[in-house]
């Protein structure tokens, strides 16, 4: 069978792209109300990367310490380096508490206090023990529980389907076109609403905690449609990536008391965040680590430091941090009960993404003009809840809470609107991309291009950034984009063509990486995760603004007119010290 002949059509009220926490929670909300929902996902739902989150999910339950919504709100705002929109954060902290009890009633196995309530532990940047957890597999149990609820409510899954194009015409979303990875063939999903919940973009970097699947595909598709992305220069580097692998070692290790030490055996966070020590926010701890490494105090002068769990003791490590223990053992053959674990900063979380309003509706411009029928939630979206730096455990909460909220608003839209017509020849765009790879005259395999991109992004767009590096990086990406036009794949078949998927993903990586770099080049200040050594101070007068970016073959257009929502009477910007 030729690729052209495999064409299938599905009409469904809602399409959810991605089956992580945000996508599953949204799909559940829709299915419970009796509407049809198709979840289109490149991996089986339980394989989604939400499941790799370890340490916890934030909510001010006050089960193990004094806490309040106001305090959670303040910590999140300060953590965001004041770039987070405060109306969003206010809604978030209120809904977070409801979300946790709802999840518990759905069956999430939370670790418990002695009196049987949900246990909560300390986490970076939070001034109360606010992280509800299940040992150190919190994301895993949340993902499985939401999947189980979707099974119960008969959500229809299209597993191993890769979305290749968005069907948008005259400012209205009409569905998506997706490739059936298992069998080959393009399917048209015609829907009233589409939710983009396809996760983050860490795979633009070589050293990353992200899964192979985290290639920010929806972001590439949004740019292709001439729509903007927001705050893309804000990429979180997690301080405790497993050395060389980048795999996440949970912040829960520090929540349980682990130290970070340099070559001299010093707990160097004393110098950088004396008030919080190792439990400073991630941007601060990652920068501190990188400074120690750059100044020659990495272990043996090399590019890593130690995470030291030894004093926590065997029993507590195995009870509270079993996954951290196994990862260090299996990947670095380090027994964390007896020896410190080599770590380095690793690209971890995408604060930026697809701009939405507080109802999860995708917006087109700084004024907030809504694109009808298109929604986004979770890490793919930028609402902006996390601003310039996300606090640990706020992301799982973000995904579930705004997944639910997106479901509510999509239901309202579906009740009030019918199906729009599909564009003429809906498959053409996706077909063109596939044919270019399977039948084009390209000569170069995609792998070398991707290696250069990931290596360059890690070296030059990492924890510390400079203008000269950004200019170099921009030129590199431009050249790689040209080379990508001449790319080819070995596998030309229909069935489970991994080569086709990886090449398609690279096109997306190249597209939004240019936006990350242009934003980082333009933003001449240091705020949260974005640190410019040539502009080391935060500059609220000029830069307390969101970045919107559009991309075309001519380059990237930036707009800094989208203002941050700030309650000046309650949380005015202050200097950020820990």
């Amino acid at each position, binding site marked *: 069978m030729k690729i052209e002949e495999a064409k299938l059509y599905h009409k469904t009220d809602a399409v959810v792209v991605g089956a992580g926490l945000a996508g599953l929670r949204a799909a559940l909300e829709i299915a419970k109300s009796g509407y049809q929902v198709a979840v289109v996902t490149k*991996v*089986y739902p*339980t*394989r*989604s*990367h939400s*499941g*790799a989150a370890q340490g916890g999910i934030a909510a001010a*339950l006050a089960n193990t310490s004094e806490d309040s919504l106001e305090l959670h709100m303040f910590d999140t705002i300060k953590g965001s380096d004041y770039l987070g929109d405060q109306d969003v954060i206010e809604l978030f902290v209120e809904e977070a508490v409801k979300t*946790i*009890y709802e999840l*518990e*009633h*759905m*069956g999430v*196995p*939370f*670790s*418990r206090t002695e*009196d*049987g*309530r*949900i246990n909560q532990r300390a986490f970076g940047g939070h001034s109360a023990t606010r992280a509800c957890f*299940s*040992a150190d*597999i919190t994301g*895993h*149990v949340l993902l*499985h*529980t939401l999947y*189980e*609820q979707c*099974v*119960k409510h008969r959500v229809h899954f299209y597993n191993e389907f890769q979305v290749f194009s968005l069907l948008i015409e005259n400012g209205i979303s009409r569905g998506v076109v997706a490739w059936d990875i*298992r069998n080959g063939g393009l399917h048209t999903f015609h829907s009233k609403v589409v939710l983009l919940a396809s996760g983050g973009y860490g795979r633009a970097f070589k050293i990353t905690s992200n*899964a*192979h*699947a985290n290639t920010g595909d929806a972001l590439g598709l949004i740019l292709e449609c001439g729509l903007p992305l927001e705050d893309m220069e804000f990429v979180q580097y997690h301080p405790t990536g497993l050395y060389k*692998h980048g*795999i*996440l070692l949970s912040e829960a290790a520090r929540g349980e008391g682990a130290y970070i030490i340099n070559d001299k055996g010093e707990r160097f966070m004393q110098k950088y965040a004396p008030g919080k020590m190792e439990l400073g926010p991630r941007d601060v701890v990652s920068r501190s680590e990188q400074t120690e490494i750059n100044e020659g105090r990495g272990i043996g002068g090399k590019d890593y430091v130690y995470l030291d769990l030894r004093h926590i003791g065997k029993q507590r490590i195995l009870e509270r941090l*079993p*996954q951290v223990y*196994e*990862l260090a053992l*299996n*990947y670095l*053959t380090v027994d964390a009960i007896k020896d410190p674990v080599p770590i380095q900063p690793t690209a971890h979380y995408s604060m930026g993404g697809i701009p939405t309003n507080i109802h999860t509706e995708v917006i087109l411009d700084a004024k907030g003009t809504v694109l009808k029928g298109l929604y986004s939630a979770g890490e793919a979206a930028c609402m902006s809840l996390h601003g310039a730096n996300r606090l640990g455990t706020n992301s799982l909460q973000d995904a579930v809470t705004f997944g639910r909220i997106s479901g509510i608003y999509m239901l309202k839209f579906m009740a009030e609107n019918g199906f729009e017509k599909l564009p003429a020849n809906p498959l053409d765009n996706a077909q063109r991309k596939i044919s270019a790879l399977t039948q084009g005259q390209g000569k170069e*395999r995609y*792998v070398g291009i991707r290696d250069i991109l990931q290596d360059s992004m890690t070296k030059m767009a990492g924890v510390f950034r400079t203008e000269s590096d950004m200019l170099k990086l921009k030129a590199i990406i431009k050249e790689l984009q040209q080379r990508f036009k001449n790319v080819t*794949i*070995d*596998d030309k*078949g*229909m*069935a*489970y*063509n*991994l*080569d086709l998927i990886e090449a398609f993903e690279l096109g997306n990586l190249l597209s939004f990486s240019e936006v990350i770099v242009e934003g980082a080049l333009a933003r001449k200040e240091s705020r949260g995760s974005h640190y410019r050594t040539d502009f080391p101070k935060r500059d609220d007068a000029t830069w307390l603004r969101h970045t919107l970016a559009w991309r075309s073959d001519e380059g990237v257009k930036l707009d800094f007119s989208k203002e941050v929502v700030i309650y000046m009477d309650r949380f005015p910007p202050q200097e950020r010290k820990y």
Partner: protein
Amino acid sequence: MAKVNLNVKILRYHPEHDKKPYWKTYNLDLEHDVTILDVLNAIHWNIDGTLSYRRSCRSAICGSCAVKVNGRNVLACETSVQVFKTSKLRIEPVPGFKIIKDLVVDWDDFFAKLERIKPYLILDKPAPEKEFIQSPEEFDQIQEAATCILCTACTSSCPSLWANDNYIGPAALLKAYRFIFDSRDGGADERLDIINDRNGLWRCHTIFNCMEACPKKIKITEYISRLKVKATENSI
């Protein structure tokens, strides 16, 4: 870093042009401490782009990459080539499933069996305003079972399943255990009705292959035995 020369045989199959699977050999030099996933990536990226396999998280939590290496079911991402103590590797799909392409197998039946046991909390009482009270001891009953990543390593290593593919298999039974022994759950009877038959619980002959295959070291056979006790008590 010391390099090693690896001789890797992979069971290949493409449904569009192969009548049956065949072994293909690759020789490559890699660092001595790479993982099986690193080996597959190196072949796919640099030698033969037509090789297909599943992978995602790289950190042994997503459950995508179970394969059989030198006769053992393992997660490719967390398993170092060093554990096999030889430079000769034979990598094939996990057994007991239909092959889609190369190392990619058909999971539909696996997930369908999981769905049969009603894998969700069944409440027989109204939910409280806040959380249900569950003691740490009650949580301990289900904690280990809840670490299951549904990687299929257990189910595909089970001789009872190879002999009879109607058997529901250890992963689905473990999921049944996880809910039946959850202090909040009220669905034990309806789930036991489903698994208390010759293609359910009683098809497990305590061979322990599942426990040996489990990358999370879950005591699956023990939990199935506890289900058998519960089913027996219920029927008396």
